């Protein structure tokens, strides 16, 4: 495939604006148009690109790729329409509100074989996570024993008003919004998890959805992962601890637009048998700081590589989205919560 691919964005909110920058920064992409149901949101875009109030007009205006940046309620409809019209689709997480949503999306993906579909699990491309993955895959630290992840927000004035806490639009609370990234990372580092136990709470905020979720997962090789996803941490926090046979890795902080999650670091600790007498329980550590987050760009580059070179999407694929949604569904069901009747389903089977 030669020349630039024409891209369009559906939904011009927080994520839509990030995607616009990513598209404009990528020499292989040309931004053709943006659609949003709110005309005021598009007011400043002329003459940057074409604008639409109906996403179908955008999909039909000659784009090759559709970036879906809509609230969860709308995403499946837009993704399925785009796939059925032969467009490659990059969809923000989560892939809808329920397991049913991602299954319907996968059905459309299967019936439109030539198109590529990827989901925005950009945390896989954060520098600290990438570095941790290289170290884990090198085998120098041995096998992963367990994972512990904390991902949380401080809440804030706009928290209650956000569409993310409107059950109909979002389908779930902090777990589906943020916790999904940590669960995706658990899967990124370990085998699939088949046992899931969870609690969810609406402990502080007066919202329709949970503001805290606690989960413990185990897979068939005995790796255990613990998650705390929270909107009551009072400090923006991201921390993933990976405990291995010969040491540990701690990815902490996230490079973000506001910097509110703190400096992104990876702590590398090595188990040092011969030095134990000197520094019992306090091994030598190495801290790596990262100054620039290229995760948004890198995931789109990976997606373009799949499109241009006719490769299958293996990172952040629909299969990944399905499996992580199944874990979330199990956590909700484990605490007898079902925000939508349609989510009351059995755990998904392997999709082809």
């Amino acid at each position, binding site marked *: 495939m030669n020349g630039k691919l024409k891209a369009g964005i559906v939904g011009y909110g927080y994520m839509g604006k990030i995607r616009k920058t990513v598209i404009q920064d990528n020499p292989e992409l040309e931004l053709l148009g943006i659609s949003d149901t709110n005309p005021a949101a598009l007011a400043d875009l002329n003459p940057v690109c074409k604008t639409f109030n109906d996403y179908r007009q955008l999909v039909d205006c000659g784009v090759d790729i559709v970036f879906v940046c809509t609230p969860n309620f709308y995403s499946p409809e837009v993704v399925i329409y785009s796939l059925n019209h032969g467009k490659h689709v990059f969809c923000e997480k989560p892939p809808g509100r329920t397991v049913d949503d991602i299954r319907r999306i996968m059905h459309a993906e299967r019936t439109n074989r030539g198109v590529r579909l990827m989901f925005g699990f950009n945390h896989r491309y954060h*520098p600290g996570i*990438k*570095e941790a993955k*290289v*170290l884990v895959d*090198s085998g120098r630290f041995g096998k992963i024993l367990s994972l512990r992840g904390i991902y949380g927000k401080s809440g804030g004035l706009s928290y209650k008003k956000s569409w993310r806490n409107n059950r109909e639009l979002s389908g779930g609370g902090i777990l589906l919004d943020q916790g999904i990234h940590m669960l995706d990372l658990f899967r990124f580092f370990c085998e699939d998890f088949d046992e899931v136990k969870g609690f969810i709470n609406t402990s502080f905020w007066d919202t329709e959805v949970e503001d805290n979720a606690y989960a413990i997962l185990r897979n068939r090789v005995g790796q255990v992962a613990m998650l705390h996803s929270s909107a009551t941490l009072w400090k923006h926090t991201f921390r993933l601890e990976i405990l291995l046979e010969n040491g540990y890795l701690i990815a902490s902080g996230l490079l973000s637009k506001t910097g509110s999650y703190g400096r992104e670091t990876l702590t590398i600790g090595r188990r040092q048998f011969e030095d134990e007498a*000197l*520094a019992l329980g306090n091994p*030598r*550590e*190495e*801290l*790596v*700081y*990262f*100054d*620039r*987050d*290229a995760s948004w760009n890198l995931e789109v580059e990976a997606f373009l590589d799949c499109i241009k070179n006719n490769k299958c999407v293996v990172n952040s694929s629909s299969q990944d989205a399905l499996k992580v949604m199944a874990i979330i569904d199990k956590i909700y069901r484990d605490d007898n919560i079902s925000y939508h009747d349609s989510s009351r389903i059995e755990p998904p089977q392997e999709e082809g």
Partner: protein
Amino acid sequence: MIRLTVHQDNIREVEVKPGGLLRTYLKLTRKDVESYFIKGAELVDCNCPACLGSRREKSFKKFGLQYWECGDCNSLYISPRPAQKSIDRYYRTSEASRFWKEELSKKTEQKRKEKIFKQRIEWLTEIIEEYLPSARKFFSVNTIHRPFIEELIESKAFQEIVVVNPWVDLSPASYTPGVVSIIDGPLESAGLVSTADAVALFEVMDRISDVDSFLTSLEKAVSPGGLCFLTSISISGFDLQVLWNNSNSIFPPDRMNVFSIEGLTALLERHGFECIELSTPGLLDVEIVANAYRQNPSMRLPRFVKYMLDKRDSETYQSFQEFLQRNRLSSFASIVFRKKQRGI
């Protein structure tokens, strides 16, 4: 993305630079500098080798050679300076150099291997795994540390190791045949083009006379996307700023260039390289200043530093050292840079 690495370790100055041996080394260096450079070589005036700035201020003389501080990037450098040919001759034949290789380096070899070289090899293999897993040919330029090459061979991290212009005797008997080859001349005249996947420049840039011409040759020798690993002392660091002319680490020709972090960055960018890691993971800044103060209590030090050394304990020293690392203010710099791919 620019990485910054912070180390927490328990290395001691005395383990790698025992006082008695260091004093002898400095004494011999002073003598050799006089005979090789002051009396026996032509010296050439130069601008700042890092940023090429001509604004400068006289700092101090060491062993008869003049150090200047750059008015733009604050690097410290010697001018006028000997040509690279004289420097190469110095490292191959001088008494000081012989003492370094046969006495100082040998007597501290075990500690250096354990505390320095093993970790350097881990560092470069990890970076290579992440950024250039296809790397096969590893170059070590102006090698002064024989144990590093030995550790590198033992690690089996590379299929091919090329040592360019070694300043130490690397006897072929200790190598696995076919793994290590030697180019017995300076990089600038080796005519290498897009050959090296990864290059080690450990304590090399400090002693290069014509930095621009060296980096031009390096840029040619490295394959597109190839990685370079540089370690050096940096004038941005705490102990060098505090001790300045009293520092035992600043002397010619070992430290002819004492670049600031800003100067090093400008230098690498000017030669078309892109920085991947810019760290100052030094562990010894505070200890070096504390030792110097202990040996000479009448030494003039900033009040804050004196107060900290007098009133606080090793825990504060350690956490201050970590602060220096986190803010790229330690005097030991380790940098990874790569040759840009075409079109990027």
